[in-house]
C-alpha cells in the first residue's frame, strides 16, 4: 500500500505513521484470507479445522447432497472437474471402506487427503547453504518480475548476496522494471539493451555471479505463452547456457502461476515442465478472491511442489506455501 499512496523514495519515511494508519484501514476492507494472514490476524491450525467443519455442520449424515456441495466448492475454487471428481471418488471409497458415518469425520479425512497431496519438503532458495541460480519463468503478466523482487528481499533479509539478471529483453520497459526492484532491495542487476539476446544476458550474469561468489542469482525471463514453440525453444536455450556456465552451481527453475488462472494453468505447468524442468511453483495474487485450486490438479498430475505464494504488490508480500492455510482458504466463502 505504501507506494500506492505516496510513491517511493524519501517521502516514505516521513509519512510512515500516516501510512500505517492508512494500511490498517485498508486491511478491514480486504477479505482475502492471505492478506489478512499477512496482516497478522489470528489464523491457527484450529481455525483451519473449524472453518471446514462449520461448513458441513449443516449435515446430519453423509449423503449425495453433501458430496455434491463438496464438489461444487472445489470446482468453484478452480480445482477442475477432473481432479474434483477424482478426489471425491477417493473420498467416497474410503468412507465406504472405513464405514464412516459422521460428516465431521468425512471432512477430516478429506483435509488429510488434500494435505498429503500438497505437502512436500521444499527448501527455499534463501535457506540453502550452497549458491543457487534461480531462473524464473511463466506466461505473460503472472508476476515474475515482482516475485523476483520479493525473493531478492527475502534473501537479503537472510543476509545473502543477491544478483539479478534482466533476461526479459523483449517487453517494453521490462529492464527498467527489474532495475526499479533491484534499487528498492539494494541489489545489483546485470542488464543488456532491450532487444538483446537473453541467453547472452544469462551468460554474463552467471559469469558475474561466479566471479563475485554471489549466493543467489535470479534470472528474469520474458513472459511467454507455453504454446509458442519458438519462444519455448529460446527459454530452453537460456537454461542450457545457465546450466553449462554454472559449472556445478545449483540451478533451479521457478514457474510463476497466477491464482486467477483457471484450468489453463495445468497446460502451462505441463509445457514449461516439459521444456525446462520446473523445480517449484510460486502462486501469485492470492490476495484477491481467486483460490488457485488448480495447483491441486498440478500437484496431482505433475508433482511439482508449490513453494511460495504472492499476497500483494509490496516487497514483503511473499510467503512460504502452507498446505493447511491454503486448503482452509479453498473453503472460505
Amino acid at each position: 500500500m505504501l507506494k500506492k499512496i505516496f510513491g517511493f523514495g524519501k517521502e516514505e519515511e516521513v509519512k510512515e505513521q500516516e501510512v500505517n494508519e492508512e494500511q490498517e484501514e485498508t486491511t478491514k476492507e480486504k477479505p482475502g484470507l492471505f492478506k489478512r494472514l499477512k496482516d497478522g490476524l489470528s489464523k491457527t491450525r484450529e481455525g483451519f479445522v473449524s472453518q471446514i467443519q462449520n461448513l458441513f455442520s449443516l449435515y446430519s449424515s453423509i449423503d449425495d447432497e453433501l458430496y455434491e456441495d463438496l464438489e461444487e466448492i472445489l470446482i468453484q475454487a478452480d480445482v477442475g472437474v477432473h481432479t474434483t471428481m477424482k478426489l471425491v471418488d477417493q473420498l467416497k471409497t474410503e468412507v465406504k471402506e472405513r464405514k464412516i458415518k459422521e460428516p465431521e469425520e468425512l471432512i477430516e479425512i478429506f483435509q488429510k487427503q488434500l494435505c498429503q497431496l500438497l505437502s512436500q519438503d521444499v527448501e527455499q532458495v534463501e535457506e540453502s547453504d550452497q549458491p543457487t541460480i534461480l531462473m524464473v519463468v511463466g506466461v505473460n503478466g503472472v508476476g515474475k518480475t515482482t516475485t523476483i523482487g520479493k525473493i531478492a528481499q527475502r534473501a537479503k533479509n537472510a543476509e545473502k548476496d543477491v544478483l539479478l539478471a534482466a533476461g526479459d529483453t523483449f517487453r517494453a520497459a521490462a529492464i527498467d522494471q527489474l532495475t526499479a526492484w533491484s534499487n528498492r532491495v539494494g541489489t545489483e542487476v546485470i542488464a543488456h539493451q532491450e532487444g538483446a539476446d537473453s541467453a547472452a544476458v544469462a551468460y554474463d550474469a552467471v559469469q558475474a555471479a561466479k566471479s563475485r561468489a554471489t549466493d543467489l542469482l535470479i534470472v528474469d525471463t520474458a513472459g511467454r505463452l507455453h504454446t509458442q514453440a519458438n519462444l519455448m525453444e529460446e527459454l530452453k536455450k537460456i537454461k542450457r547456457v545457465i546450466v553449462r556456465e554454472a559449472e556445478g552451481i545449483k540451478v533451479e527453475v521457478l514457474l510463476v502461476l497466477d491464482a486467477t488462472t483457471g484450468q489453463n494453468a495445468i497446460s502451462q505447468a505441463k509445457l514449461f515442465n516439459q521444456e525446462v524442468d520446473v523445480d517449484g511453483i510460486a502462486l501469485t495474487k492470492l490476495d484477491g478472491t481467486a483460490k488457485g485450486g488448480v495447483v491441486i490438479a498440478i500437484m496431482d498430475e505433475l508433482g511439482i511442489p508449490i513453494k511460495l505464494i504472492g499476497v500483494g504488490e509490496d516487497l514483503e508480500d511473499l510467503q512460504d506455501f502452507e498446505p493447511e492455510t491454503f486448503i482452509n482458504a479453498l473453503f472460505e466463502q
Partner: protein
Amino acid sequence: MIFEGLAEKLQSTFDKLKGKGKLSSKDVKTALREVKLALLEADVNFKVVKNLINKIEERAVGQEVLDSLTPAQQVIKIVNEELTDLMGGTQSKINFGAKSPTVIMVVGLQGAGKTTTVGKLAKRFRKKGKDPLLVAADIYRPAAIKQLQVLGERIEQPVFSMGDKQNPVDIAKAAISNAKSNGNDIVIIDTAGRLHIDEDLMNELEDIKGAVTPHEILLVVDSMTGQDAVNVAENFDQKLGIDGVVLTKLDGDARGGAALSISSVTGRPIKFVGMGEKLDALEPFHPDRMASRILGMGDVLSLIEKAEEQIDAEKAKELEEKLRKEEFTLEDFLDQMNQVRNMGSLEEILNMIPGVGKQLKGLNMDEGQLDRIEAIISSMTIEERRNPEIINGSRRRRIANGSGTTVQDVNQLLKQFKQTKQMMKQMGDLQKGNMGGLKGKMKFPFF
C-alpha cells in the same frame, strides 16, 4: 484436454441410443452432462453453467429435437446458439463521443494486459485516421509509464505522462486538456492494474471516471481466468458500469470460458480479443467462434455445413460400395481429394476440426503437394488409375515426366495411396460401411 472432442462424445452418446428408436428427455440429459463438463473444464463459472444448462435443457427436450434424425447435431446447435446469444450475438463497436475527444478508459486486474491493449487500440485507431493520445495513469507499477512511452514511440502516437508522483485523477484531467489543445480526437487512459476488492483503488477509478466522463470503459480480462472471472467482472461493472470487455492472450490454448462468465454476469459485450504480443494482434470478437472454442469442438458447425454443401451424397454412397468391395482406385482418390478441396484450403479445413487446428499451427500446409498429386494421377492411363499394381519402373518415369514431377514423387503417392486404402478398409470395417449417408449421420471427424 479431456473434453477436447465434445462433438464426438455427444455423437457417440446418441449413437448408443439409436437402437432404442426415439430419444427420451433422459437421453438428452445424459448428453447435456457432457456439455456441462466441457463448459466447466473451459473455466465457465459454475453458477453460470448451471443456469445455462437449465435453459438449454428446456429447448433441447422439445419434440422437434427428439424426433429429428440428427438429435446430436440439434443439441450441439442449440448449445452453440445459446452460448453465442449470451456472448452478445453480433459484434459490437467502440462508443464514440459526439464531441472530440472521445475518452476511453482501460481497467482491469494486474497483469491482464491493459497497457499492451492500450497500445493496440491506439494503433488500430491510428490506422483509421484517428490521432489518439495515450495517458499513463499507472503510477504504481515500476516502469509502467516507461512501458507505455515505449509503445507510444513504436506506433508514433503521443503519450501523456506526469510522472509517478501525481494523482491519477489529476493526470487524467490534465490529459484531456492536453488532447484538446493538441487536437487529439481520442484519449486512451491506461490505468494501473488493481484487485476488484481493493476499495481504495476502486474508488480511485470511480474518481477518474467522475473527472473525465469517459465514453467507453473497457475491462481487460485475461482469457485464462478461472472461476473468479465473475467476481472480477461484477465488481468492476458495479463500481464503474463498464461498456465492453477485451479478452487477452487468446493466442494460447485457453478455452476462454471467462468470456461466458463475464457476459453472463455483466451483460456487456466483448468487443475485442488480443491474439498476440504484437501491436496489431487485436481482433474484433466473434461470439460464434468463441462458443465453439469454449466447447472444445473447433468450428464443427461450419464444417458440417461445408461438407453438406460439397459432398455429393450419391457419390458418397458409391464410394462406400467400392470400399466394401475393395475397389477403391486412384481415380476415386483424386475425386475425393477434389471434393475435400472444394471445401476450402487445407489449412482452413484442418483448423475447423476439433483439436487439430492448434497442433498444426505454424506447420506449413503444402497446397502445392496436392497440386502435384493431381498432376501425377492425371498423367496416368485409366488402366493405371484403376490398377496401380501395374505401374512399374518405366511407367513411373513416364508419369513423372508427364506430370512435371520426379519418380520419387510418384513413388510416394503410390505408397500413400496404398496406405490410405488400407486405412479406409479398416475404417470401413469399423463403421460397417457407413461412410455414406453423410446427411443423416455425420462422423466427427469424418476423414
